[in-house]
């Protein structure tokens, strides 16, 4: 419990307010002193230690942009907590850092990805694409010399210690080409068998990791065209050369066996032959509005996109309307003091709300299963009603299950709002001769709507992105086979984004981000309109 200030002391203190404030500042500095200061220094020390480690790693990786950002954030954080002024910043910074990175930045990053061809086959840089193209088409050179090799291990990564036919010793791994070494241990025949800092794999280790070792390809030099060494058995390595020859100056990739020349296409992010065939993988490039053109310009995508958008609005609106109607009805029914056992009903009706939503959707998916589910087998006597596989029945099922999930919330909210309406209003209206229905429609309902309308907007916004229900109940299905993307009749926009980006073998992050941008725009429009209507923002002070 708190001690309240004695009012008679106030006047004296107002007179000496300035002095008091000064004194309290000194007192704070002195009394809260040493322990708080130590804690502060300790916490900042931990943060700084992590930052320094991060900076060190970034320096080694030569990532100058991120290095600069981390350095800047570290300096700002230290300044904020060590200077005496700027108290609000001390309280806001921890949350703001997370907010800026994982909520604000990612939105901007989505915007950037929407203008790239990021996705399966285009998820890396051009250098990576060149390397992986050359590696994937490598063949053993028929008359390759035999290189004696010893497999080394360091921090879980394998390296080759190679003694070439001339007796020169070098070390390399798939990420760094062979470099000559002088301090290797050698056996009697001059073959290198160990290197300081590395562990030499014995025969049993090699056998145990046979597949991983056979897959290693160590480049001979910085130029990928020089080929790389591979060892089928862990003791002798051979030179492997690629069929593809990369010409960096001309920007071409030539297939040595067929003679086809693939030319680099910077707008598409891949090597393309004259007949239009391209080499996979390509690399990530900015493609301008191509993703938006694909979304709105291709018939097989535009059609589904429009129907999905309409269904998203219909679903969100119907969800709010049905749950609110049932919740309000129940709130009126159970808002009668004469009725006994209201608490029992209330607790049972809250259960659907307390049950985790993703599980509810999975349980209902089982109950609505056409062949074996409870609804068809028991309630409809074995009829095979396609609750989740017929387009319109699936939509109905989703609204129905969401009614089950959502009515308790509306019931609680409406009960609270009804009870906060003063009883005198009803009495006065009754005295004036109003019928019960008139009392409800003209007095209670308008007052109720004032207090619950922000919650209805929030509920609409929530259901607009109610991914779990859709994905777990119908998985968006039944699938629209004519569509150019993986999308079904009950998919909403956010589940469509998820499917395009993460489901199936062909992931298209660029197109998915373009859809995300569309959701952002729609949500922003809905928010602007609804906030204008309710004037909720004017209450901010």
């Amino acid at each position, binding site marked *: 419990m708190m001690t309240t200030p004695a009012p008679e002391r106030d006047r004296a203190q107002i007179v000496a307010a300035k002095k008091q404030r000064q004194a309290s500042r000194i007192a704070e500095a002195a009394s809260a002193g040493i322990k708080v200061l130590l804690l502060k220094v300790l916490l900042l020390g931990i943060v700084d230690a992590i930052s320094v480690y991060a900076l060190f790693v970034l320096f080694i990786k030569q990532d100058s942009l991120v290095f600069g950002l981390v350095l800047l954030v570290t300096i700002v954080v230290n300044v904020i907590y060590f200077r005496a002024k700027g108290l609000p910043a001390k309280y806001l910074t921890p949350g703001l850092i997370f907010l800026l990175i994982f909520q604000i930045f990612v939105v901007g990053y989505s915007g950037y990805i929407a203008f790239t061809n990021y996705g399966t086959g285009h998820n890396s840089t051009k250098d990576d694409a060149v390397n992986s193209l050359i590696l994937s088409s490598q063949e053993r050179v028929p008359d390759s010399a035999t290189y004696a090799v010893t497999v080394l291990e360091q921090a879980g990564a394998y390296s080759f210690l190679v003694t070439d036919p001339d007796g020169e010793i070098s070390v390399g791994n798939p990420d760094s080409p062979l470099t000559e070494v002088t301090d290797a241990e050698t056996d009697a025949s001059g073959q290198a068998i160990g290197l300081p800092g590395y562990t030499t794999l014995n025969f049993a280790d090699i056998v145990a990791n046979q597949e991983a070792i056979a897959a290693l390809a160590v480049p001979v030099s910085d130029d990928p065209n020089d080929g790389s060494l591979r060892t089928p058995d862990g003791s002798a390595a051979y030179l492997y050369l690629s069929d593809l020859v990369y010409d960096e100056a001309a920007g071409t990739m030539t297939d040595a066996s067929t003679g086809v020349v693939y030319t680099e296409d910077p707008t598409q992010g891949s090597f393309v032959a004259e007949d239009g065939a391209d080499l996979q993988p390509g690399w990530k490039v900015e493609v301008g509005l191509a993703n938006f053109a694909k979304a709105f310009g291709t018939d097989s995508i535009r059609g589904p996109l429009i129907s999905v958008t309409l269904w998203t609005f219909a679903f969100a609106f119907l969800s709010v309307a049905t749950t609110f109607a049932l919740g309000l009805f129940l709130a009126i029914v159970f808002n009668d003091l004469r009725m006994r056992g209201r608490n029992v009903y209330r607790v049972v009706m809250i259960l659907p709300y307390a049950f985790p939503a993703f599980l509810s959707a999975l349980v209902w998916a089982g109950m609505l299963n056409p062949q*074996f589910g409870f609804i068809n087998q028991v309630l409809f006597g074995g009829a095979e009603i396609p609750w989740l596989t017929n387009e319109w029945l699936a939509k109905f099922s989703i609204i129905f299950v969401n009614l089950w999930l959502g009515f308790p919330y509306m019931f609680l909210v409406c009960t609270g709002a009804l009870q906060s309406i003063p009883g005198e209003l009803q009495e006065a209206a009754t005295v004036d001769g109003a019928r019960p229905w008139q009392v409800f429609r003209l007095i209670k309902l308008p007052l109720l709507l004032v207090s619950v309308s922000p919650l209805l907007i929030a509920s609409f916004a929530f259901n607009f992105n109610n991914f779990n229900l859709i994905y777990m109940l119908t998985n968006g299905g039944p699938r629209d086979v004519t569509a150019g993307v993986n999308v079904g009749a009950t998919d909403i926009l956010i589940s469509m984004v998820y499917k395009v980006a993460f489901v199936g073998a062909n992931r298209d992050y660029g197109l998915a981000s373009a859809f995300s941008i569309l959701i952002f725009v729609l949500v922003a429009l809905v928010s602007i309109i609804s906030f204008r209507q309710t004037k909720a923002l004017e209450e901010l002070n």
Partner: protein
Amino acid sequence: MATTTIAAPATTDYIPVKHPFNFGRWFRATGWRHLVGAVMVVFSAFPLLYVLSASLHPGGTLITANGLFSEVDLGSYVTLFNLPQQPYAAWYGNTLLIGGITSAGTVFLGALAAYSFSRMRFVGRRAGLLMLVLVQMFPQLLAVVAIFLLLNGISDIFPAIGLDTQIGLIMVYLGGALGVNTYLMYGFFNTIPASIDEAAKLDGAGHARIFFTIILRLVAPILAVVGLLSFVGTTNEFVIASIVLITPEKQTLAVGLYQFVSQEFSSNYSVFAAGAVLAALPVMALFLWLQKYIVGGLTAGSVK
């Protein structure tokens, strides 16, 4: 409301008697409400009883689950913890761990921000409050692709906090900490009289001491509500968890159970049902325990 008809006295002597029970009158006044209540109780509770009965039917499939409570045996619960492919116990632990840390972090970060918005006046305060309201409209899952690619980039440099790590997932969730519930807390902080702060300040307490030892205790109910809503939200979260956590041992219940269901739904239904019952227990227990706070918090403006 419903009009009550006053029955004329049936007896001719004038001894005042208690009205005899009149079914019609009772039904018009409150009886029909019980009828509605009974229908709603069946509607609300049936799916939950269904999954409970299915979980008590060992080796049961979707079709045997229709015989409600025809057999009662805990065998499925034993099977659940011995599945070769699905590490249910690990999922359970992960969910509690991730949910617990996330909700504690959310409450802490949110309370810090709400305190400064409620008690301090500074440049950008109104804009900051406006931002908190607007950020609520744009849930993190809209940027799921960018979150995935950001964590993918982080794992190239710091594998310990990147893709397929629980720390990475918790950090992503904490990004939503300020957005979702700070405004709720801000409203509650405003109801604590500022004179309490001033009294403490005059007694020589610093801002940190006022916040940690006085204010945080007075706003405990809202901290409980926000913590619970955050825990429930994290437990239910599927989209981000499913793309960040790849190794089965690191996944949460939402991701694990969904994959379990999509692999063998109808054949192994009793095991899934057992998993669902156990998964729902902590959330439902917390919910019913903190019920009165939640109802207060809900009407103040938050949604599930």
